[in-house]
């Protein structure tokens, strides 16, 4: 008989822990790149593995094997630690959202608030990373990251409360299970909330219409300009994990999480639903050009905050 501690340890390490999430992260980056390429009438990655499926993995290995430069002017300790911290934060956020099983790796009543908190901390760590590299491009990029957070954070938090009010629980796992048991899927009953959440998550993971902090035509590579080698590999992995995070959050709050009929393993439903969400995100990425900073902030405050409030008012009036 294997002791329970070992099983728990393996579940954090392999399934549904680190190895599972990393594989999924590479897979979804490939899905994203390939889908955008097909929308633009290109092939996208093609020669690394069948259909280019190993492309993100090749990128990762290459970056790990490259020289790792720490600029002389950088704040060395912070510069080295922040990429690791970012990955750790993104992973621990994902542990509170149900992925492979119907319950998350770890959950408690109130983890919805905790997850919003972790997401904001992730943004602040990004600012510290940018600041510690002391290059002008990174600093301006870092400031833009926080500016973007001022836009998306409020409407995102407001719409995430919607499902919690109706299902009368503050735990993401329970919200997902509640939708399955009652058949009351919030994607149908709170469509405004779903749209607002997806747009805000797009800004959170800094994808195309909101890639203002990385704006390569203005800022070299924005806040990641000075990172190279292993640090860049970790940052890219974090970006991919954040992509899963976005997919998993929408899935859990609005699509009923990794649940479904016919006794099919819950991970299958998770994969189907998250892939759907990620395809929507990639589609938006291919569709829009980058917004200006004022358009982004104005758009969030003028349109998304009122829409989010409208959704909450509808919910409290009993619609949704």
């Amino acid at each position, binding site marked *: 008989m294997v002791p329970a501690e070992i099983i728990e340890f393996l579940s954090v390490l392999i399934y549904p822990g680190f190895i599972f999430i990393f594989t999924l992260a590479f897979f979804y980056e490939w899905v994203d790149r390939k889908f955008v390429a097909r929308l633009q009438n*290109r092939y996208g990655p093609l*020669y*690394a593995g069948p259909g280019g499926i190993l492309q993100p993995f090749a990128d990762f290995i290459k970056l790990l094997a490259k020289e790792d430069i720490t600029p002389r002017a950088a704040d060395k300790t912070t510069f080295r630690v922040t990429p690791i911290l970012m990955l750790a934060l993104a992973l621990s956020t994902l542990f509170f959202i149900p992925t492979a099983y119907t319950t998350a790796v770890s959950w408690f009543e109130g983890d919805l608030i905790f997850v919003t908190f972790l997401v904001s901390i992730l943004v602040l760590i990004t600012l510290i990373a940018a600041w510690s590299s002391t290059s002008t491009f990174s600093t301006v990029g870092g400031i833009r990251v926080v500016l973007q957070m001022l836009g998306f954070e409020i409407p995102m938090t407001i719409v995430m409360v919607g499902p919690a009010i109706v299902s009368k629980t503050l735990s993401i796992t329970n919200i997902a299970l509640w939708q399955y048991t009652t058949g009351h899927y919030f994607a149908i009953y709170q469509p405004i909330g779903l749209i607002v959440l997806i747009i805000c998550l797009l800004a959170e993971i800094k994808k195309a219409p909101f890639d203002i902090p990385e704006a390569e035509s203005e800022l070299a590579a924005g806040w990641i300009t000075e990172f190279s080698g292993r640090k860049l590999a970790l940052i890219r992995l974090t970006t991919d994990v954040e992509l899963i995070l976005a997919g998993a959050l929408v899935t859990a709050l609005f699509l009923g999480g990794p649940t479904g009929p016919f006794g099919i393993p819950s991970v299958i439903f998770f994969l189907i639903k998250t892939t759907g969400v990620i395809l929507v995100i990639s589609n938006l990425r291919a569709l829009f050009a980058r917004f200006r900073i004022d358009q982004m902030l104005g758009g969030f405050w003028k349109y998304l905050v009122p829409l989010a409030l409208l959704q909450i008012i509808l919910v409290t009036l009993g619609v949704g």
Partner: protein
Amino acid sequence: MNVVKWARSKSPWIIHFNTGSCNGCDIEVVAALTPKFDLERFGVLLKGSPRHADVIVVTGPVTNQVKERLKRVYEQMPSPKFVMAIGTCACSGGVFKDCYNLCQGVDKVIPVDIYVPGCAASPEAIIDGAAKLLKKISG
């Protein structure tokens, strides 16, 4: 096959540097990245920062003014790094050969791995050069 070599040959990220080109070659480099020719098939991504890049794609003869900057950008790239000289100008100075204000080609300033001649080098030639560079990397 060695995993690291495999990864390197599958994911060359490029940075584009204009050292005084007439813009003819730059347009062709950009054309090679657009949907019609799609260099992303080989894993090529255009990066904004030299810290992220593996391959520096240089177009144009190196003018005396840009020489130091070319060196600095090259030194900012983490090794292993590779250089592609695109266009006859970048290979030897081309039509501007023996001008008083030039260094006559990229290889007078930094070591070049692949020369792609042509005025302007066509996207097909650039893709051919990229494929040869990848073969050299995985070599």
